[in-house]
């Protein structure tokens, strides 16, 4: 079994913990509890006959005054960057998160989750233009959660098969 580290990164209160909780436990809780430091969850998958254990790092949200310790980024194979579609500032800060992450892990894969899509009206949803590797997601409604992890898991396995690590 191969073991790989995946990070969830983004501003505070964008729903990183809820995404993981929905993916691992299939549950959702509306109340907000700030994550401090990092909480690590595990998920075992089999992709193309390869057994894979994902170590999913739920990293505390960044704020204007608090930056994420770079030590968290070390050794990560992939990341999910999370933004809250109802807060524009969290969407615009995604680029910074990606840049910082790629400085430490230049070959890592990533996807972007524009979360809390349940807060958008149909018109707002239709007018939203998303970059590549991005998904509108809702932990509350369980929309596009699995696919975020599946895409990264597949890329990790492909890379593993190609490079043997």
């Amino acid at each position: 079994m191969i073991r790989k580290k995946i990070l969830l990164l983004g501003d505070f209160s964008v729903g990183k913990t809820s995404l993981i909780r929905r993916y691992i436990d299939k549950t959702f809780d509306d109340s907000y509890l700030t994550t401090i430091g990092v909480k690590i969850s595990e998920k075992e998958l089999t992709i193309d006959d390869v057994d894979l254990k994902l170590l999913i790092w739920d990293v505390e949200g960044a704020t204007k005054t608090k930056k994420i310790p770079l030590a968290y980024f070390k050794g990560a194979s992939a990341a999910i960057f999370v933004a809250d579609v109802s807060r524009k500032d969290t969407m615009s800060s995604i680029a910074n998160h990606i840049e910082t992450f790629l400085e430490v892990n230049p070959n890592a894969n990533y996807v972007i989750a524009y979360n809390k899509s349940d807060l958008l009206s149909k018109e707002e949803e239709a007018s939203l233009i998303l970059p590549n590797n991005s998904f509108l997601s809702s932990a509350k409604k369980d929309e596009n959660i699995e696919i975020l992890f599946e895409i990264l898991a597949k890329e990790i396995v492909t890379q593993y098969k190609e490079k043997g690590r």
Partner: protein
Amino acid sequence: MHFKDIFNVVCSHNLYEYFIINRDFKVTAYSVDAFKYCHCDNSENDIFTLIPELIGMEDELQELFLLDKCKPIKIPHIFKEPDNYVNIIIQSVEKNKCDNKEPNSLIILVQNTTEVILAQQKLMQTANENSLLLKEISDKNAQLYLLNEKMEELVEIEIKKNIEKQKLMEHQSRYSQMGEMVEMIIHQWKQPLNSINVITQSISIAQELGKLDDKYINEKTDAILKQTKYMSQIVDIFQGFFKPNKLKRYFNLYDSIESVLKLLQNEYRLIDINLKLDGNRETIVNGYPSEYIQVVLAIVNYVKDNLILNKHDQMSINIYIYELDGKSIVTIEDNAGGIEKNLLDNIFDISTDVKQENGGIGLSIARDMIVNNMGGKIELENIDGGSKFSIIL
């Protein structure tokens, strides 16, 4: 003292635990309670199984074994089930720069920081919640600002529309006033024209009978001149009513209203409406007399139409003038059965001004003249068997 002894002393305070690993990442030594942060017991010696937080950091750990890579790695604030927070610090040990040998072991120090982190968490929770609240307030403010701007725009558009509508109404009103004036003149001219007709016929008969002399001609000419003079006076009177006069002046209410009612009497008598004026003959008001008369005419016409719709034997319109608290009040009462309740509150509105649609100076313009031009009030109420308009100036 050996470093293990030193660590054991440190770890006895229960805040620190340690693992020592070799180059194969296998545990070679550990503090007594080191496994309390792991999911497995001391039969397991693979450090990545014991501390999965180190998965992916194989390269970084390898580097620590190199001589010149002695900077420790610190991973802060890792949550460990069930309710602990730890810092993980990894450093090389047994390094001996003198004999230039690379270190053979790494020490992984697990520092319990639960108390500090829990205190920090409360602060962060409050700070983040406040920040979200502030953001929400700021968003709502922005929305309100936009809404306000939009409202101002809408109000401006509506004001412009109303001004346009008002202009159009005034324009229409002028045409209808002219129409009314012509109608009234025609009505008042009927009798003198008839008289002139009779006089000319009598001249013709007198000529046929040979009775046409100078005296007869002079008499009849005087009679015709009298009638034409009367016709000319009628034109002057009506022109005076409808000529826009922008000079505010004092005028006698009774005299002004009486002068116009005199001209209407014949017409109203023909349709069996008793038109009566009574009250204080001395009341003087400051305003625009021609506009005031138009307002009275508008109301009387409106009331007349109501009476025709609800025709009965005793149809009457009573106009009464009096003074109260230094104000002049003219009431116009009818016995047409009253105004429908839903019309009562908005009869002076443009949208419900029926008269305006059908021609003639409407009640909305009448209200406008009294309220906006003369600073007065115009009221309407239902009374027993009819309605009562009050013009207060």
